[in-house]
């Protein structure tokens, strides 16, 4: 059975036609906040229920619970604070009880009912969410450069943002119907921000062996320098799916949301999003959502023991590698051979080869995938 929405109810904060027309007409007279894309997509994701049970940006009570307890104030597991930062000048233009227009690149697309404006301690935030205050961590850097105040309140989406991946974007209500129509009862969600190498493929196929369906769901949106660009990830997956996956048992769709690089906390957040899509299981590999050496290799798996009530089953997988003696891609659980036979499928090594315009070897990456990646002049985020 498709997983129940997180918190028991799939949130929908979408304005009906009349309400939308009225609010868009009144928008010119309301205070406006222009949001960068990563915040605008948070609004859209709240509206379509991807962040259920959130109906808006966190108020201070929920924010503090999320920060310190990794739960909302009603005890629902929630690990990543979804917050809207503003500066003093912006905050001086509205008060709790006001409705503010949310725009992106000048275009109104949502409204926010302001419930509360509050301050936050960025250092405490960084330490608790990212487990470090090192400004070299991309999530910490983003936190430190954020504005000094937070605004809590419910949002209402008036219209969708422009989306270059609209045909590849499925909303939670749509995936839930899709999985049901396909007759899937068990669905493994796979999160990625990378182009697929053989290790990823075997992780996915190991899960699919025991599941009715696989939901491959790359994140597109803000990423750190050196990560693969969104269009490269999409092209690489298309190549892999076309050549190596059974059509009927895989759904490929992207989610527009920023990577936060929060390691263990983000792994839980990723699981919650996939639960809202309807996944019953979620694949958690080595160093999930990690960056640098800030988190232990399997810390993102260990954190799940704190959430018996998460409502989605994590599937913990070990690192896959190519074993010359086994003659295939295996992991340490099933391969008895020593290190000398093992070819580690390292994303860092693959990136270095791609940078030099070289094809990674077939025991690391499918040639069709490598060709798709290399077809881009510069496949990495600048």
């Amino acid at each position, binding site marked *: 059975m498709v997983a*129940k929405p997180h918190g*028991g*109810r799939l949130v929908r904060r979408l304005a009906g036609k009349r309400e939308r027309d009225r609010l868009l007409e009144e928008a010119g007279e309301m205070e406006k906040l222009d949001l960068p894309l990563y915040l605008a997509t948070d609004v859209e994701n709240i509206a379509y229920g991807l962040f259920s049970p959130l109906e808006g940006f966190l108020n201070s009570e929920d924010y503090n619970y999320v920060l310190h307890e990794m739960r909302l104030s009603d005890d629902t597991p929630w690990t990543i604070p979804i917050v809207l930062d503003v500066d003093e000048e912006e905050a001086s233009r509205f008060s709790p009880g006001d409705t503010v227009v949310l725009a992106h690149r000048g275009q109104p697309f949502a409204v926010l009912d302001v419930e509360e404006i509050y301050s936050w301690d960025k250092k405490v935030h960084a330490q608790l969410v990212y487990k470090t205050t090192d400004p070299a961590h991309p999530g910490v850097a983003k936190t430190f450069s954020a504005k000094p105040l937070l605004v809590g309140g419910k949002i209402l989406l008036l219209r969708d943002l422009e989306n270059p991946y609209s045909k590849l974007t499925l909303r939670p209500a749509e995936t839930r*119907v899709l999985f049901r129509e396909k007759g899937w009862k068990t669905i493994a969600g796979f999160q990625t921000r990378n182009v697929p190498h053989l290790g990823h493929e075997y992780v996915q196929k190991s899960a699919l062996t025991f599941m009715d369906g696989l939901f491959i769901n790359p994140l597109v949106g803000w990423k750190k320098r050196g990560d693969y660009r969104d269009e490269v990830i999409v092209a690489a997956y298309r190549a892999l799916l076309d050549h190596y996956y059974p059509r009927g048992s895989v759904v490929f769709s992207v989610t527009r949301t920023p990577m936060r690089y929060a390691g263990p906390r983000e792994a839980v957040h990723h699981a919650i999003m996939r639960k809202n899509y309807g996944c019953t299981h979620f694949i958690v590999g080595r160093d999930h959502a990690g960056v640098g050496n800030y988190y232990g290799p399997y810390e993102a798996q260990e954190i799940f023991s704190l959430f*018996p*009530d998460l*409502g989605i089953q994590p599937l913990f997988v070990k690192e896959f590698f190519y074993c010359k003696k086994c003659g295939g891609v295996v992991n340490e659980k099933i391969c008895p051979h020593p290190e000398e036979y093992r070819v580690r499928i390292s994303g860092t090594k693959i990136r270095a080869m791609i940078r030099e315009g070289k094809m990674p070897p077939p025991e690391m990456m499918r040639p069709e995938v490598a060709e798709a990646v290399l077809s881009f002049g510069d496949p990495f985020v600048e």
Partner: protein
Amino acid sequence: MASEKGYTTVSIPVTLHRRIRKIIEGTGFTSVSSFVTYVLREVVAAYEEEKAKEPFTEEEKKAIIEKLKSLGYL
């Protein structure tokens, strides 16, 4: 409020407390309270899950199916 931990007291029979104390020995649970919290969260989540409902009507479902067909997902 920020660093405050919100806890309250619930009574359980002393005999049950003893039983739990025994079974958590050598496990990751550091106290009877942490074990009880863990088990209760599991039970409460299962109870709540039974009541959860999908938000869309039959008509909306039909529209979604048409969209999924047009996108090639069905």
